[in-house]
């Protein structure tokens, strides 16, 4: 398969970026999107040019490092996958593919397609945990947890922190990311103890970092590689309002 790639190139955080056009040919349809970029980078290295920088690590859809906005969609045209799990068979031979970095004020571009997502760490730092120290905890089976609640908590906990929700949202809102963590703990008795403080601190941090506001458009849910549901945002709203009002 042959493709024309239009890729965002930017030397560093302060440089003014631009789109560059590249051609890759003879790509196998079983090739993953990132392997296709590897092939492009090999071509660039052969020509003594600077390869395209992009974040990637596990290449099996779990670390959340990849952050490519492909043809208008975070992680590209396939659903429920990250860019590393996207295969070229999802494109048509001869396609032009536009690759951009995540765009959001709290995700500044570092280089080319690499963005700084440390704001997500700041949000977790503000309260995305159960405040217990190592040791001195009760036996794991002391508190039975209804299976359905544990499953809902797991649905939320599946978040890989890639930031596709922010990238997809027209408002660059981080609500789905925050909701996933708040919701996970809200469903478990261990997390309920400090549920109020947690939700207030995490929402305050999210606002402070300059993410947009949620307008319930649902783009986050549609693009989330782990298919985290909007119902978690409703739960976040509920948790927040009950913490504030009640």
């Amino acid at each position, binding site marked *: 398969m042959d493709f024309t790639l239009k890729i965002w190139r930017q030397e560093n955080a302060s440089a003014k970026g631009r789109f560059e056009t590249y051609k890759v040919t003879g790509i196998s349809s079983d090739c993953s999107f990132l392997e296709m970029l590897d092939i492009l980078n090999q071509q660039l290295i052969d020509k003594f040019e600077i390869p395209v920088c992009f974040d990637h690590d596990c290449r099996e859809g779990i670390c959340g490092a990849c952050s490519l906005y492909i043809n208008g969609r975070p992680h590209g045209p396939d659903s429920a996958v990250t860019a590393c799990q996207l295969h070229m068979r999802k494109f048509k031979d001869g396609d032009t593919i536009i690759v951009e970095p995540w765009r959001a004020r709290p995700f500044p571009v570092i280089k080319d397609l690499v963005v700084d997502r440390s704001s997500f760490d700041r949000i977790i730092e503000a309260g995305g945990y159960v405040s217990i120290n190592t040791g001195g905890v009760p036996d794991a089976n002391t508190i039975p947890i209804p299976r359905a609640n544990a499953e809902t908590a797991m649905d939320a906990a599946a978040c890989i922190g890639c930031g596709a929700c922010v990238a997809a949202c027209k408002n660059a809102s981080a609500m789905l990311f925050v909701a996933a963590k708040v919701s996970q703990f809200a469903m478990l008795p261990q997390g309920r103890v400090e549920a109020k403080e947690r939700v207030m601190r995490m929402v305050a941090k999210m606002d402070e970092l300059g993410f947009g506001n949620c307008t319930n458009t649902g783009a986050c849910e549609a693009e989330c590689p782990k298919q985290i549901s909007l119902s978690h945002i409703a739960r976040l709203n*509920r948790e927040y309002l009950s913490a*504030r009002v009640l």
Partner: protein
Amino acid sequence: MSNILTSSIGKKLMMSLAGLFLVIFLIVHLAINLSLIIADTHEPFNKAAHFMGTNIVIKVMEIILFGGFLLHMFYGVFLQIQNWMARPKRYRKENYSQTSFFSKFMIHTAAIITVFLVIHLLDFYLKAKLFGEVPMAIYDGREYHDLGTLVINKFKIGSVVIFYIVCFMILAFHLLHGFQSAFQSLGLEHKKYTPVIRALGVIYTVFVTAGFMLIPVYIYFWM
């Protein structure tokens, strides 16, 4: 720590409460309007309009209603500006995820509805309140503004009818997202009941906006 009125979720709370309040107001407004075409005379409509214009409780409600509108608009604009600021550099190719379609145009539909509101208020509300350019009618020995006649005269003009119909279609787009969105913002989400709320939202939107649209059409063609 931010407070309930300034945090992102707090602002959404305000948006949704004000929005739901306006949703209720639309039903009341529609009920009165329908009386104009259902009844044989303008009497019920004019009396209702009079009651709405003079009753002290309604006067208070009127202020709350204006407050509701202002709050909804203020927060809407405020949120939108913040949302634009959250993405200073836009994408070359915008996201086209399959989601609630109308949700992407809430600020645009809102702007049109605001323009409509201004014109609407100038046409009827302010005419009756300030300018006194309204003919009078007498029922049971008391004088009432004959707003009914004013309305009917207005809707005999084809361009006005079209303008109203277009604006209500825009309102429908706004409501199609807004109705269920308000419940989501309030955290009222449930596996069983959310589909019901969504369906109610669609029924409400169709019923209310069709009702409002029916009036000018009916007047233009049949009255």
